[in-house]
């Protein structure tokens, strides 16, 4: 009803853009995702650079063309678009297409689009995309490699988290010893 009143007020002068603005301000509360709202409104005060803003906690971005050496610890999101040489301890790591990363990595999730040399230990997923060139030792729980990618070195499944598709064979192996103990328990009861 209120929306209709707006339209009447503006009359025929209303153009599509202002209609969109009225519409989006009106439904601001409905858009629970603030980022979606920012994108819709194209708010210039909240400019993002590769998904990382200056106020985000625990984020580090090594931009394209930048060369950095060192040690990153306790980071949440790490994005390597330039050249980085050193160790990284971060919740999630992304090496973008032009990125070049050398060093020891300890993370939850890694996605590699660019160049990587070194050792990786991920507690969760390791994604190697088609443009990637990855060499080293990889320890993972979920590994995904896209056709065309280069991945060389030792690959090891850590077995911390069960894969998406549960293996039937391993389940039956685990069940067998349990069944055996059940039978022996029954025997004991009979003897008593």
């Amino acid at each position, binding site marked *: 009803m209120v929306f209709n009143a707006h339209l009447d007020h503006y009359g025929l002068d209303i153009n599509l853009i202002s209609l969109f603005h009225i519409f989006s301000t009106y439904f601001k509360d409905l858009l629970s995702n603030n980022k979606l709202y920012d994108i819709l409104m194209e708010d210039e005060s909240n400019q993002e650079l590769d998904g990382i803003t200056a106020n985000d906690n625990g984020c580090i971005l090594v931009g394209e063309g930048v060369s950095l050496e060192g040690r990153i610890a306790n980071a949440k999101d790490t994005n390597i678009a330039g050249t980085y040489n050193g160790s990284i301890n971060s919740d999630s790591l992304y090496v973008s297409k032009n990125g070049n990363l050398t060093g020891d990595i300890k993370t939850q999730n890694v996605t590699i689009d660019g160049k990587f040399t070194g050792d990786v230990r991920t507690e969760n*997923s390791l994604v190697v995309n088609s443009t990637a060139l990855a060499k080293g030792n990889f320890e993972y729980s*979920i*590994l*995904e*490699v*896209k*056709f*065309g*990618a*280069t*991945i*060389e*070195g*030792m*690959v*090891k*499944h850590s*077995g911390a988290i069960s*894969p*998406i*598709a549960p*293996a039937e*064979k391993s389940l039956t192996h685990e069940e067998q010893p349990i069944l055996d103990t059940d039978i022996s328990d029954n025997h004991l009861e009979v003897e008593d």
Partner: protein
Amino acid sequence: MSIFGSQEKKEIIEEKFIFPVSDISTSHHTFISEDLEINGNITGKDYIELNGKVTGTLKSNKIDIKEKGLVNGEISADNLIVAGEIDGEIKVHDLYIRSTAKIKGIIRYKNIDIQAGAIITAELIKTI
């Protein structure tokens, strides 16, 4: 029933992508069933579908190791799809590893594709 039907269709489409139907009908299609256990060497020129167990070497142009397929030994192929288990050395041009696969050993490949969920503990070597 309808859900089952759609799943089957998806699988067929996926396989067509790698093995064109015309290719299979004109080639020698070898099928190794689930209850078969082979000790020794298998050499073919075309397509082998493995549901059973092989201890030894497996060599062909296209090899499809299904979920219940198991290989203990060496595999060399042009095109290999793995949904089962392999323990040994793999030499392949195009390798597709499905989410249900379990692989241990050495993998020599030119192109590799691994679906999330596969359990692989191996040395990966890219050949030129």
